[in-house]
């Protein structure tokens, strides 16, 4: 019995890509944003996080991406506890296991599209030219490789951002309203691509969105309100 339980636990731990337990966060000089949030995400699973503006969705996403520290609780990302990590430990984790897509795209302005696409993968030391070529084709960016980000439309920029995120084959993709800046047509196209690529590469997706329509397309959904998951 004990052995079996331990085994199941181990499997569960391995399967849980992201484990958030009772996490609280307060920005200096402000009211608490997160008050005991718990959440988990399995490998390859897709999860939509909804909530009102200012409810702390982005904050939670940032904590999950090892971008910022939290006050209490624990976050385990791909088996690593975040609470004990220093700056360089967090940076290594960001390089190695997660990738981020933001509403503002946040490409690196001084690099070309092609350089932006491969940047994260090369930084993580996991460059796979065949996969990047494949990604470029699927995202329809083949023609745009030599351009600079600001010479692209919003939809094009977001496709570059998704390509950059997935090029490194991360275990977890964090996306904060990735289509919030795009019109409906562009938004649908970008979402379709993202969901398909996530499936193809077996990446888990943690997506913040305001859109019911988009949330409905994901495996699971969670709602953040009053600093907790409702």
């Amino acid at each position, binding site marked *: 019995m004990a052995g079996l339980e331990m085994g199941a636990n181990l499997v569960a731990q391995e399967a849980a890509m992201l484990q958030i337990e009772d996490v609280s966060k307060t920005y200096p000089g402000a009211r608490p944003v997160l008050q005991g949030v718990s959440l988990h995400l399995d490998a390859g699973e897709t999860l939509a996080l909804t909530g009102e503006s200012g409810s702390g969705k982005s904050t939670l996403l940032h904590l999950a*991406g090892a971008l910022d520290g939290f006050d209490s609780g624990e976050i385990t990302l791909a088996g690593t506890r975040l609470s004990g990590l220093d700056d360089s430990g967090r940076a290594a984790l960001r*390089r190695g296991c997660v990738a981020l897509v933001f509403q503002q795209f946040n490409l690196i302005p001084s690099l070309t599209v092609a350089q932006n696409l491969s940047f994260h993968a090369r930084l993580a030391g996991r460059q796979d030219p065949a996969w990047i070529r494949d990604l470029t084709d699927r995202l329809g960016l083949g023609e745009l490789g030599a351009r600079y980000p600001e010479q692209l439309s919003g939809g094009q920029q977001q496709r570059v951002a998704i390509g950059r995120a997935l090029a490194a084959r991360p275990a977890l993709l964090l996306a904060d309203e990735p289509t919030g800046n795009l019109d409906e047509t562009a938004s649908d196209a970008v979402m379709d691509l993202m969901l398909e690529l996530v499936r193809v590469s077996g990446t888990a997706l943690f997506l913040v969105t305001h859109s019911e329509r988009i949330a409905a397309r994901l495996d699971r959904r969670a709602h953040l309100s009053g600093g907790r998951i409702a």
Partner: protein
Amino acid sequence: MIGAALQALASHWRRHPLQLGTLLAGLALATALWSAVQAINAEARASYARAASQIGGATLDVLEAPGGPMSRARYVALRRAGWQLSPVLEGRTRLGEEQVTLLGLDPLTHPPLPAFEAAMQADQATLAQMLTQGGLLLASPELVSALKDVPGLPPLRASDSVPPGMVITDIGLAERLLARPDQIDRLLILPQQPMQLTPLDQLAPDLQRRASRAGADTARLTDSFHLNLTAFGLLSFAVGLFIVHGTVGLAFEQRRAMVRTLRALGLPVWLLAALMLAELLALALVGGLLGLGLGYLVAAALLPDVAATLRGLYGAPVAGGLSLRPSWIVGGLAMALIGTLAASAQALWRMLRMPLLAAPGLQAWAQRAAQGDRRMALAGLGLIAAGIAALALIKGLIGGFALIAGLMLGAALLLPPVLAALLGLGRHLTRGPLGEWLWADTRAQLPGIGLALMALLLALAANIGVGTMVSSFRLTFTGWLDQRLVSELYLTARDDAQGAEIARWLAPRSDAVLPIRAAEFTVQGNPVTVYGVVDHPTYRDNWPLLDRTPDAWAQVNAGQGVFINEQLARRADLWPGDVVQLAPGWVLPVAGVYSDYGNPTGQAITALPALLTHARAVPNRRFGVRIVPEAVPDLIEALRAKFDLPASALIDQAGLKSRSLAVFDKTFVVTGALNLLTLGVAGFAILTSLLTLWSLRLPQLAPVWALGLTRGRLARLELARSLLLATFTALLALPLGLALAWVLLAVINVQAFGWRLPMYLFPLDWLRLFLLALLAAGLAAALPARRLYRLPPSELLKVFANAR
């Protein structure tokens, strides 16, 4: 409405106090260095003017004997013939510890002098007192206090209008103090003359009439020095304006949104422009006033050294104290205002023509800059070519400065395109994403930091150029001193009789006693001191000849040739093979040209007997003594005991050399100080442009951080970026600085001083300067880098926040 708009505009400065401080500091620094130089120049000019007005009747013609002083009898004879003349006796002498120029005048006939007038207004007794046996000495207040404890001097009176280092007195007293009884150096020809006089060239054909040289020489000689200082001041001013340009540009950039809102609220564009202009002018006024205060302090600190320079190099008397002139204040403020307007015109213009759409992104900026780069490169090359053409066409000092201006400005314009090319090259040579990003990103930063780097380039090049000039000069000068000062001991006797006595006494006690005797002549209207030397190997083996005929020494020792100094050779265009007329009936071929650094006037050397036949009353008081160096101290003791000579009359070679070098070093303290200040300002310019770029910088750094770099790593990369740019700039500054040094040595020096110096290279100095540049750039980058390192992640995350 105006009040509300003003409040809105001003609120920006309240929220960005550092920016305000930087702007004011840039303005203050620019104004300070510029007005410091102006204050120094004005002070020196005032001193020259005072000197010129004292030497008296600067506009009067003068009658002189070519071969030296004339006798009182000549003067009396001419007076008898009806000529209205006033005698002058002038000479250098030592009163106590002070070396002074003693000007002996006849107060009854001399044209009115400011010093007399002032003294006589103060009390009626002056004239009488001046003429009585006891006499009276007029001198500047500083000199009076230095002389007041010297025993045996006639009463002293202070007068502000006597130039520094000069004592004015009655000619009778001057004769005694100078030990030149019955002598007159020149006769002023007074403006009012009776009718029907016998012309002077019949009465006294041997006397020469010439326009007074008072002031003109000093002005001509020192003009170039002041031009040098002014050029430096202008350079510092320009470097300071880089800071102003940077901060104003940023302030306007950050207020775009506010301006848009104000315009949307119905504020007319012209009113907005007027308000922003008024704001700029107010800031300029505050910065300018701060700069004036700072400039006054800098000038006061530097003036004593400048005064020493002018005295040492040109013999021009300048006081060490600074006075506050209204014209200087107005001029400094005007410069601050004009500079501010010039530095902000672009930002203001852009702001007013701003489209009501979003600002263009970084890459567009860089792309625009790339187009601008090509234009700038062309303009830069054009400026350099124009400078070279100017030197070829105009020649002379102006041509030299035009070349310097063209070189410096052209190189500054060339800097961004050259840096861009270098960074592009670096990018091609790098593998790995971070390296690639670093080069590309640095390239993208260029438009923002380019101006500061130009400032650094100019400061470094000026440092290398002036440093190379000064060090080359110093090296040449020390070598030359070794050649020139061969005698182990130099002594000055009280008078000719004592001189002869000492020479006799010394003859058996030394290897050689070499008389140093000279008389004044005029060559092509300029004074020339002609030395007569005896035939001795001391001269033959050591004299620093630059050019000579094959049997030069034989010619000179036979009195059949003359050596002239480089200044005279260049000014009069006389070279070996030419002949020079030293006096009517005394024409000698030029046998050689020797270097004679630090001497403002012409000089010549021939055999002593030849000199004695052409000049009367050549004093015989100074001697060089050859003796084994170990015996010098004992000999000095013995001489002092036997002949009762003051300490100043006996100088050993080492003492003379160190004294000469001290004067030399003091000469260039000012340039050194200005150099360092300019470098400091350039470092500050880098800091300000980095700080101003800070807010633009975060959105570029945050994604890289999010992708897995620590803040510490990013901060180190930011530091490395600045060091990289500083390194490239310093490498480019080296050839520019050497070109500048060449122009200074081969063009400016020849025009300004009359001598051409060989150029030496000082790689250790470059290394030191390179490290200084890295230090400046590193310090400038350290502050923003530290800020980045300490930045809480939540601040970086704001970049990704949706509502931006």
